[in-house]
């Protein structure tokens, strides 16, 4: 299981890009943290989620 923003999801083995494609996140508005490090945008396709990973998807909103 992979923890994503606090929820345990059965997505181990998928890439970050594959998981994101199943969500409504706007890829231009997010940053992805995995086990304490940012996943570089260029690595979404190559990063395979492992059992026990903890992922946070930070989705930015406008205003400043």
């Amino acid at each position: 299981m992979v923890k994503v923003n606090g929820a345990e999801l059965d997505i181990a083995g998928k890439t970050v890009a594959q998981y994101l494609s199943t969500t409504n996140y706007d890829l231009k508005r997010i940053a992805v943290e995995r086990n304490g490090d940012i996943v570089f945008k260029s690595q979404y396709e190559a990063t395979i989620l492992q059992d026990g990973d903890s992922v946070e998807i930070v989705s930015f909103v406008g205003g400043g």
Partner: protein
Amino acid sequence: MIPTKKEWTEALIARHGRELHQRFSSATVAICGLGGLGSNIAIALARAGVGKLRLIDFDHVDITNLHRQQYKASQIGRCKAESLVSNLQEISPYTEVEAVIEKITEENFAALLKDADIICEAFDSAEAKAMLVNGVLEQLPQCYLVAASGMAGMDSPNTIKTRRITNRFYLCGDEVSEVADTIGLVAPRVMLCAAHQAHTVLRILVGEYEV
């Protein structure tokens, strides 16, 4: 009559203590975007005695900015970066401030920011925020980054918070109040978020990394 630099420094040391003053005054902080967040962050950091501020914005002061941004009616139509430098020089004459009148892009951010100790993301647009955060964390791993998301509207002030997302990436705001979904930005709530960012900068400078 403006105090001398020596008097100014002694006053800051009397308030903050020598060690904090040394940490603050030797720091360089870059502020990306000089709207409601950036203009308030800049004033807070200048008052606290941060040594060098790099203020980056391509835009001009508009009448619709004055309900929350730290400019004056007389500055409408003038460049934000230069106007803020002028305001800061009145508030804190010995802070070293540099105006950079450029739009920050994926191509130029690294060159503009690489010698900063701490970078504040203070943009308006969600896409620009994400671009800068991803770019800085990938290409400038030596810098700390303090970003903001979610401070619009009339929701409770108590929902504005600071989280440490990675070792060098802090995020301030309620993370949900999108400007387009609310009545817009209201001065005190934006100032709260800017205060979270500015105070997080100072805490990093004194080695207080946990939130």
